[in-house]
């Protein structure tokens, strides 16, 4: 059935620049942290014939890990702030499902996108509530990684920031245990990245609203009727 008029699409500026900046700094930082973290956990012997005074590569790997950790942490604090002043898609209120409607929205997402029992339904312009809840979970794990990482780092640093987290160590029964958990929880970020990147492709592919590019330019493309204005 053909219509006479083109479908009215609108551009919506969803992700503000600070949100996009946070996202990419975070993504780069976590990527570096995972790579360097793996190397610290299981260093590879690269240059066997060199003498110790000729190289410092493992030192640089660790430096990268610690520097990225600081950046990612302050970046996160910035995002917490932006959750109070940003647009409606960036606000903390868009992260927590509070009323029944929002829980139903979450269930809808499970049925439509995860189990694919239903073909299509209401469009969420920013995050859907299932995604938001995943991010909340991820933020908690992120904080665990920060706390445990700084607790491990505190013995090699004179700064007060890592010292704030030394209480983690006796709580978890020594550095060795903190380290194991720090390593284990890192895997959650690997799993998250796989699913996150895939789902973005999926949404872009199935819905064609510019999900992928929205994290670069900030724009999403919505049918006029989905904007419920």
């Amino acid at each position, binding site marked *: *059935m*053909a*219509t006479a*008029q*083109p*479908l009215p699409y609108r551009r919506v500026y969803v992700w503000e620049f600070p949100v996009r900046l946070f996202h990419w700094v975070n993504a780069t930082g976590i990527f570096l942290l995972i790579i360097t973290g793996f190397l610290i*956990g*299981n*260093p*590879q*012997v*690269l*240059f*066997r014939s*060199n*003498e*110790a*005074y*000729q*190289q*410092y*590569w*493992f*030192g640089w*790997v*660790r430096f990268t890990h610690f520097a990225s950790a600081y950046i990612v942490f302050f970046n996160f604090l910035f995002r917490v702030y932006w959750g109070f002043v940003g647009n409606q898609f960036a606000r903390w209120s868009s992260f927590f499902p509070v009323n029944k409607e929002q829980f139903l929205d979450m269930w809808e997402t499970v*049925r439509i996108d*995860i189990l*694919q*029992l*239903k*073909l*299509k339904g209401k469009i969420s312009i920013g995050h859907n509530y299932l995604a938001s809840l995943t991010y909340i979970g991820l933020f908690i794990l992120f904080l665990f990684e920060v706390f445990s990482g700084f607790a491990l780092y505190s*013995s*090699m640093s004179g700064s007060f920031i890592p010292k704030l987290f030394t*209480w983690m*160590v*006796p709580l978890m*029964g*020594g*550095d*060795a*245990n903190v*380290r*194991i958990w720090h*390593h*284990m929880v*890192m*895997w959650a970020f*690997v*799993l998250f990245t*796989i*699913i996150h990147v*895939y789902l973005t492709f*999926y949404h872009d*592919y*199935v*819905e*064609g609203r510019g999900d992928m590019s929205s994290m670069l330019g900030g724009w999403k493309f919505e*049918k006029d009727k989905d904007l419920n204005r």
Partner: protein
Amino acid sequence: MEKNVPSIWKAMEAKGYSRREFMYFCGVAVAAAGIQSSAFGQVVEAFEKKARPPVVWLHFQECTCCSESFIRSSHPIVADIIFDTLSLDYTETLQAASGAQAEKCLQDTMKNNKGKYILLVEGSVPMLNGGSCCTIGGRSALEILKEAAADAAAVIAWGSCASHGCIQAAKPNPTGATPIHELVNRPVINVPGCPPIAEVMTGVVTHVLLYGKIPELDSQGRPKEFYSRRVHDTCYRRPYYDAGLFVESWDDDAARKGYCLYKMGCRGPVTYNACSVTKWNGNLSYPIQSGHGCIGCSEAEFWDNGPFYQHLSSFPGFGIESTADTIGATAAGVTVGAVALHAISSNIRKRKIIQGNMEESVSPNKPDHEIVEEVPENGGDQS
């Protein structure tokens, strides 16, 4: 039991030490406790005037390696603190008295020196089965500890047993072995290690002796003077670590060259102790210097932290061979599989939408009216 306890200087004098030897002893004590030399005068004065404190050394669930370490302190004169100058009134291993006599000796010391004696505890206390796994003179370890700790001037927990429970507390902890600081209601100086370094032990005792109070402790109750740095931070193999030069098997060339033992399971990076500074056996060597990785004996739960020769230990609750990486990699594999299935399923289940999108696409050369309307709202709902 004499009530009028002489000072350390008086006791030394009575034993025939010269003033010169006394001054030397003070010097060694200052060095052992890590006190700055400007405080030397104070130390001499303290040792001249203060009554030498009696010491009660209790042994519970332990192997006596702490005592063995202590009596091998490299400065004979520092060992003398205990054997000559301190009055070691009760210690099962070394005392002459036995049986009822020994128990009386303990009671007398505690009664006559209320609030003055230093309590040294070696070993953990069993809490299961009414404490029946360790009794002395018919009384449970807990009972003896509570009584002795109540009136002590300071309580020092010797070694990993008394500080963390050590091997007795390793899973499944059949006797309910419990560290001292969880049982007494007062600050305890933890001096962990299996055993602790002799010089560290004498250093801690000297500090208590000199100042009459406990040294500055970290969050785990360990004296900061000796436990604030990791073995790794002062390890002489550290340059190899930073350069990324590692031993990969016990007989490779890197092992001969003395490279870092990190990949061989060295626990130096997670172990707080003074080994690489103070060293052992009179400053002779320490485990890493003799080619073996640190096993982290001064850390809590070190027996349960996985094999000593494996860097990333097995993950609790997942069976013996599952390290964090095997679990993580399996989970990642499953996730990738699920994602692939989802992608296939999406192409089948959402075919209509995807086709609809294709048809919706406008061609730059054709007029708008060829656009096909979208799939109706419930068009594909098969639920």
